[in-house]
Structure formats: structure tokens, C-alpha cells
């Protein structure tokens, strides 16, 4: 108990003094996860909305595939991205393996299906409501998607958060393609795994607390935005 208590005290000390090692890991984690979420949104939001609106051959297969990919094991994604980026792989010449870019690529692969599948589900309901009006206006495909994404923006915050949650909590894929290299590719989750195995509970706990606070803060912000939007727009 004393060891754990000491570890907690040390962890709070690291957080309060903004210890440089901890800050560096937190910043890299945020940089990797937020970039991955941004790229996944650029791909996943219009893709999900398009799947909700347009009927075309093979649509059902894509929808089923996206739903299945939502639950894809991160280590499998990590392995596939590793094979693609390794020296013998098709993208090996880019030299991206064991860089933050490789970690971003792995996280994009993991969260794009989540963003696209959840966007499709929420957008489908709105499309059912808007369809006749937008078709009556003669709106083109890009106008339809833009309208649906904009009017659904507050619900989509939850979707984006689900993606961010998956990205920031993920350890398997980034460990494989990033390598957990100190000062280069070490992020919160891989650092927690490493420091726990080394017995350095203070840093592991400190990072764990930051991760929890981050998750709580982001979710609280999303809740407040959704509530105020519901009050304002009905």
C-alpha cells in the first residue's frame, strides 16, 4: 500500500511540476492521436454520409466491412502497417517505420472505420428526414453531404470522440509500428506499458492520470456542446 501511495504522490509531483519527460510523451501522444483523428474525419465523415445517402452496387458489402473493421484488433492493424512499411514491404522505401508518421498511419487505419460507420448510422436518420426537401431543391451530391454533415455536427462530435478515444487508448498497433523509442515514438500508452514492466510506477501512474483526465475533459466538453446545441437548435 505504501509503495502505491508513494507512487501516486510521485505521479502527482510529476504532473504538477510538468516534468519534461512526461510532458514530452503527453505532447507526442496528442500530436499523433489528434492528427490521426483529423485525417480519419476527412476520410470517414464524407464516406459515412455518402454511404447513408447513395445506393449503389456493393454498398451493403462496404457497410458490413466497415462495421466489421470497427472491431479490428489493433495488433493486427499494427502488423499489416508494419509489413507495408518494413524495408521489404511495398512502402519500405519511404523509411516511415518507427516514426510518428507510421503511428499516425496505423491509428488512421484503426479509427477511420469507426468514424465512417458511426457517421453512416447517425446520418441515415437525418437523411430520412431531409431527403424529400433536399431533392426538391435539386441539391447535388456534394450539397447533400455538406448539408447533412453540418446539420448533424453536434451528434458527430460523439463520433469523433469515439475515434479519439480509440486512438489515444490504443497500444498494440503503435507499439509495433512505432517501436516505443524514447524521445521519438514513445506515447502515453506504450510508456505506461513499459514503465509498469520496469516497476517505475510513478511515471506510469502519472501518465495514466493524464490519460484519464484527458478522456474525462474531452467527454465533458462534448456533453456540454451537445446539450447547448440541443437547447439552441431543438
Amino acid at each position, binding site marked *: 500500500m505504501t509503495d502505491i501511495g508513494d507512487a501516486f504522490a510521485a505521479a502527482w509531483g510529476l504532473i504538477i511540476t510538468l516534468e519534461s519527460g512526461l510532458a514530452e510523451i503527453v505532447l507526442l501522444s496528442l500530436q499523433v492521436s489528434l492528427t490521426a483523428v483529423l485525417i480519419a474525419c476527412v476520410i470517414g465523415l464524407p464516406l459515412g454520409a455518402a454511404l447513408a445517402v447513395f445506393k449503389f452496387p456493393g454498398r451493403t458489402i462496404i457497410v458490413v466491412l466497415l462495421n466489421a473493421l470497427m472491431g479490428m484488433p489493433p495488433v493486427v492493424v499494427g502488423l499489416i502497417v508494419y509489413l507495408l512499411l518494413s524495408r521489404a514491404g511495398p512502402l519500405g522505401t519511404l523509411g516511415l517505420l518507427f516514426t510518428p508518421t507510421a503511428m499516425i498511419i496505423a491509428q488512421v487505419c484503426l479509427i477511420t472505420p469507426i468514424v465512417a460507420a458511426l457517421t453512416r448510422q447517425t446520418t441515415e436518420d437525418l437523411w430520412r*428526414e*431531409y431527403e*424529400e*426537401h*433536399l*431533392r*426538391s*431543391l*435539386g*441539391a447535388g451530391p456534394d*450539397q447533400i453531404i455538406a*448539408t447533412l454533415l453540418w*446539420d*448533424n455536427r453536434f451528434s458527430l462530435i460523439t463520433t469523433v470522440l469515439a475515434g479519439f478515444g480509440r486512438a489515444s487508448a490504443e497500444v498494440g498497433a503503435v507499439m509495433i509500428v512505432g517501436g516505443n523509442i524514447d524521445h521519438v515514438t514513445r506515447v502515453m500508452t506504450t510508456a505506461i506499458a513499459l514503465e509498469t514492466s520496469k516497476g517505475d510506477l510513478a511515471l506510469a501512474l502519472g501518465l495514466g492520470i493524464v490519460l484519464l483526465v484527458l478522456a474525462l475533459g474531452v467527454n465533458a466538453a462534448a456533453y456540454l456542446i451537445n446539450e447547448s446545441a440541443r437547447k*439552441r*437548435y*431543438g
Partner: protein
Amino acid sequence: MASLSNILPLSLSGVEFKADGIRLIKDVSTEFKAGSLSFVLGPNGAGKSLLLRLCHGLIAPTAGRIDWQGPAAEDPQPHQAMVFQRPVMLRRSVYANLDHALCQRNVDKAERTRRIEDMLERTGLSRLASVSARRLSGGEQQRLAVARAWTLQPEVLFLDEPTAALDPSATHAIEEFIQAIRASGTTIIMSSHDMAQAKRLAEDVLFMYRGRLIERSPAQKFFEKPESDLARSFLQGDLLWWKRKELTPPDDG
């Protein structure tokens, strides 16, 4: 606007619409010319809303032809607008709802501002411009829906039972707008089962029953001397479905 007659007349020839193997619109042939206020009248389930959706191009007929015949007949959509029985309100302010519709028709910013301010003034919605459209009352929402269609300056306006769920005061406001739109030269095709409203507004009446166009007459003639037993029965307020054995529409088997 109607005086330009870009897309009218609209001609329907042997139009049929089937869903799940059931014929919901049966062999409808008629024509709508520029500059009229036509009322599609009939009981619930007559196919009035379906007929308007077919004419507006929201659904395609399973048989027959619907042809716009004016010089812009190749692309009729930008010359039409439609108001639905349950108004579709975007999750935006009143102003943004109007602006969105004009944006879809590629109207430039200065013209959008001018038209929106004019329309808000005309429809008495100015004080609600920044309010969320979904926060409005049913009557205000339908007023906004009519304003949104009107601001597009359509040559043809389809109105699908726009007052069906409104109280008399809101109905009166919508009817005033309809008359103003008609006076501006827009051709209006409107569905309703409200005979009193048809008497107040209609110039000609298309009476439908069970997917079939039973008769079409100038409004005065229709109300004074309807041609069919079905229309007469409807005007007398009979419950048609109780009497359908005696009043089977022609060729209905």
C-alpha cells in the same frame, strides 16, 4: 416566374405508380397550364400527395409519361418548389433555412440577402430570423416552409396539404400567402381534402379517389354541379369507403 413560362405546360399521360405490387396511381392523364391554381381534392388515400410527388419528380412513374413542355423542360427542377404537409426544418435558424435553399439554387450572396430580408418582412418572420427553426410553433414552421419555397421564385409551386395540421388562424395566414404567390404569377398545384379551402382558393379542381382521377372541372362547376357520383358523394360529406360498392370508380374491376 410564371409569365416567362419556362417549363409549363406539364402533361401527364397514362401515369401509373405501383409500390409493392399495388397500383396507387392508376392511369392518370391531364395537363397543367401556366397561370392557374389547381386543387387536387379527394379523401385520404386518394393518391393526392403521390400525384404531386410524381409531378415534382420526387418519384418516377412505373408507367406512363410526365412531360414538362416549356423551353426549359430539359432541366425543370430549378423552376419548381414544393411545400410538404409536415414541414422539413433544417437544424438551423429561420434565416439560415431560407439562405440554405437559395444557396442550393446558386443565388449570389447580395441577392440572397435581399430576397431573405424581403421574405422575412412579407411573412412576418423578421423577429424570429435568428431563432432555431425547430423551436417555432407548427404554424410558424409551415409559414417558414412556404416562405422558403416562395423565396426561390418558382414558376410552379406544389403545396401538399400545407394547412392540414394547422389551426384556423395559421391556416388563414398560409392562405393569404398562397393568394399572394398566385398573384405574383406562380402556377400553384395544391392537394387538400378540405372542401371549404378549395372553395376559397381553387380555380380548377382535380377530384381523385383511390388513385384514379375521377373528374377535373373549373372550381365553380365542380362545386355546383359535379359530374361523378363519387364527387357528389364527397361534396355531400358521405364517407366514401362505406359506399364504395355502389360508387366503384369506372374500370376499377
